[in-house]
C-alpha cells in the first residue's frame, strides 16, 4: 500500500522509533518569537544546556510589538521585557534574530516563507499554533508549547506520536469574490472545531491546486481551528515558482526540486478519513459566534440556538449570541462593524493587501468605522508601499501600520474596546481575543474591504 504525503515526510524524519513510545522526530526548522521562548531559554540556562543547531533556528519579534513608532523604546513595560529578553537570549545562544526595523521582521509565519526557508518535505515547529501555515509548502509544520521549544532548542528533535491522516478534497472552481479564506471557514463550519482532532489534514483537489501559495497558506493556517495538528498541501510548480529566487532557495536547486517532486500522496494510499467540499457552491463566509466553527455564508441570518438539536451546540450558540450581542434572525449583512482589521498570518501577505486595495481604491471607508491595515512583515509593507498600496488605504481613510500580529490577538496597543465589533481577516474569534469584551467576525480580505466601505458586513458583490 502506498503512503500519504504526511506519512512520507514523517517517516523521513524519524531519528528513533521504539515500541510504545512516541517517535523521535528530527526538526528541520525551528521558528522562535518573544512570547513562547523566554521560559524555554530560562530552562536551558538552569540545566546548563546549549542550543544544538542555531543554524536551524530563527527568531523574530511579532506578537506584542507596537505597529506605530516602532523605533522608539516599547512603551508597554511587559512587552518591552519580552522583546528585550528575546534579544538577550538570541545574542547569548547565537540565534539569528530579525528585530523591529529589520526588513525581515514580522509575523513568524510570514517571515519563514518570504525568506524561502520554508520548503517542501521539511519538519517545522514554532511555539505558536499557526505554524500549520507552513504546511502550504508540503511540509509537516505544527505548533508546540514552551517546554517543547526548550526540547527542540536542546536536541533539534521532538518526541511526537504520529497523527492520523485526513484528506479534505475541494473540487471545482471558486466564484469571483470567493477566496481561500472562505474555503477554510466553510471547512471548519462543516467538520467543527474538533473535527480535525488527532489528524494531519491534506488539502487536495482542483480548487486547492488552483490557489496561489499565499492563498494556500491561508487554508493551512487555519487547520488548527478545525482542531488538526497540522495541514498540508502537496508541492507543485506553484510551490517551486514561489521559492525560486527567495534568499534561502536551495543552491543545488535541481537536486532539491527532484526531491520535492517525490512529495505527493501515492495513488493507492489510504487516508483514515476523507471529507469532500464543492468549491462551486461556496459563498463568502463569515463567523457570527465565538469559535471559528460558528460561521455561515454572508447571505445567511444569525442562527437561532433553538434550531440546534445538539444541546452542547445549542448552549454554545446561546452563549455566543449573548457575548456577540446578536439577535437570532438578523441578516448577517445588517451587522454594523466598528473596526476592520486587515492583517495577521492568515491574511497579512502582499496578495491579501493587493486584493483589498483593489476594492477600496478611489473610495472612502464608512465614516462610522476605523480600518487598520497591518502588513504581515516589514518586507510586505515595503513591497506594498512600492506598489502604492499604502496610499490607496490611507486615501480611503484607513490606517497604515508597521508589521506585527497586532489586533489579531491584541497583545500590543491595537485592541478592540469593550463591546466593539470587528470584521477581521485573522483566524480566531474567541471571546476577548482582540481585546477584552471585543466582538470578532472572521472574514476574507475581500469581505473586510467591502465591509470597510459599507459599514456593515458585506461582500464585494454588494458594492
Amino acid at each position, binding site marked *: 500500500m502506498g503512503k500519504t504525503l504526511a506519512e512520507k515526510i514523517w517517516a523521513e524524519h524519524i531519528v528513533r522509533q521504539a515500541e510504545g513510545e512516541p517517535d523521535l522526530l528530527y526538526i528541520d526548522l525551528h521558528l522562535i518569537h518573544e512570547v513562547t521562548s*523566554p521560559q524555554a531559554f530560562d530552562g536551558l540556562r538552569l540545566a546548563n544546556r546549549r542550543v544544538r543547531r542555531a543554524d536551524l533556528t530563527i527568531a523574530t519579534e511579532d506578537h506584542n510589538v507596537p505597529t506605530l513608532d516602532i523605533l522608539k523604546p516599547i512603551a508597554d513595560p511587559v512587552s518591552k521585557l519580552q522583546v528585550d529578553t528575546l534579544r538577550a537570549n538570541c545574542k547569548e545562544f547565537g540565534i539569528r534574530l530579525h528585530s523591529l526595523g529589520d526588513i525581515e521582521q514580522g509575523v513568524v509565519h510570514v517571515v519563514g516563507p518570504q525568506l524561502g526557508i520554508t520548503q517542501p518535505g521539511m519538519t517545522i515547529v514554532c511555539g505558536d499554533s499557526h505554524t500549520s501555515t507552513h504546511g502550504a509548502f508540503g511540509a509537516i509544520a505544527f505548533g508546540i508549547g514552551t517546554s517543547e521549544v526548550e526540547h527542540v532548542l536542546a536536541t533539534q528533535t521532538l518526541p511526537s506520536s504520529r497523527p492520523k491522516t485526513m484528506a479534505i478534497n475541494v473540487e471545482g472552481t471558486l466564484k469571483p469574490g470567493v477566496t481561500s479564506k472562505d474555503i477554510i471557514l466553510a471547512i471548519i463550519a462543516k467538520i467543527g*472545531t474538533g473535527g480535525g482532532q488527532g489528524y494531519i489534514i491534506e488539502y487536495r483537489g482542483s480548487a486547492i491546486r488552483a490557489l496561489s501559495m499565499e492563498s494556500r497558506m491561508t487554508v493551512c493556517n487555519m487547520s488548527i481551528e478545525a482542531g488538526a495538528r497540522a495541514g498540508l498541501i502537496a508541492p507543485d510548480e506553484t510551490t517551486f515558482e514561489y521559492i525560486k529566487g527567495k534568499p534561502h532557495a536551495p543552491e543545488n536547486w535541481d537536486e532539491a526540486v527532484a526531491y520535492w517532486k517525490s512529495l505527493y500522496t501515492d495513488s493507492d494510499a489510504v487516508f483514515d478519513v476523507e471529507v469532500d467540499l464543492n468549491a462551486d457552491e461556496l459563498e463568502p463566509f463569515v463567523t457570527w459566534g465565538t469559535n471559528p466553527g460558528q460561521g455561515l455564508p454572508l447571505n445567511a441570518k444569525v442562527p437561532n440556538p433553538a434550531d440546534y438539536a445538539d444541546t452542547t451546540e445549542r448552549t454554545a450558540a446561546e452563549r455566543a449570541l449573548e457575548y456577540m450581542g446578536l439577535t437570532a434572525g438578523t441578516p448577517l449583512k445588517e451587522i454594523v462593524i466598528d473596526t476592520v482589521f486587515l492583517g495577521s498570518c492568515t491574511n497579512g501577505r502582499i496578495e491579501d493587501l493587493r486584493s483589498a486595495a483593489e476594492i477600496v481604491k478611489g473610495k472612502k471607508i464608512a465614516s462610522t468605522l476605523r480600518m487598520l491595515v497591518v502588513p504581515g512583515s516589514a518586507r510586505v509593507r515595503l513591497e506594498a508601499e512600492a506598489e502604492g498600496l499604502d496610499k490607496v488605504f490611507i486615501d480611503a481613510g484607513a490606517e497604515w501600520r508597521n508589521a506585527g500580529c497586532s489586533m489579531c490577538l491584541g497583545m500590543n496597543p491595537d485592541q478592540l474596546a469593550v463591546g466593539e465589533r470587528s470584521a477581521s481577516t485573522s483566524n480566531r474569534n474567541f471571546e476577548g481575543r482582540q481585546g477584552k469584551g471585543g466582538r470578532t467576525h472572521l472574514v476574507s480580505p475581500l469581505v473586510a474591504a467591502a465591509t470597510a466601505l459599507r459599514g456593515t458586513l458585506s461582500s464585494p458583490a454588494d458594492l
Partner: protein
Amino acid sequence: MEKFIKHTGTGVPLRRSNVDTDQIIPAVYLKRVTRSGFEDGLFAAWRNDPDFVLNKQEFKDGTVLVAGADFGTGSSREHAVWALQNYGFKVVISSRFADIFRGNSLKGGLLTVILPQSDVEAMWEAIEANPTTSITVDLDTRTVSYNELSHSFTIDDYTRWRLMEGLDDIGLTLKQTDSIDTFEGKRPSHKPATLPIR
C-alpha cells in the same frame, strides 16, 4: 518535574464546554518571562464574576478541575498549563481535550484525564452536592474514585511511566544523542539553514 503517582483532593466543577486557552489564561498575562506566578491570570475574565465557580468559598481549595468537553482548545500557549498548576490544580478531568493542550499538560506534569461525558456530569452533581467530596486520581491503577465510585481511564504506558517517574523529556532524549548525530550525518545538503544569513 514532580512525580505523579496518586493524588487525593477536592473537585471544582467547571460547567462549560469549549474552554479555550484564551479563557484559561488571557493573552495579556503571557508577557512574563518567568515560569511561575500565572495563577492570578487563570480564568481572569470569568473571575470578575462573583458567581464564577472559582470565586466560591467552598471550591477555593479544589485541586481537581472537572470541566466540560473540548477543554483547552485554541492557542498552543503552555502558560495555560502553568496557570492551572500555579493555581494549585493537579488534575483536569474532561470528556475531550484539545490535542496541544493535552500534550502540554502531560509533559508538564498536569494530569489530564478523559472520562465519558456522563461520568463528568455525575461528578459535577456529586461535587456540587458536597464540595468536600474527596476525589482520588490514581495513575498507578488508572482510576478516578470518589464516593465509592471508581472510573477507569486510559493513558498510554509511556506517558504514565514518565509521569510516575517525574522524568523530564529533554534528559530522556539526550540519551539518544548518538542516533541524532547519525541522522544529521545523513541529512540532504539541499535542506535550508538559517545561518549564515543570505
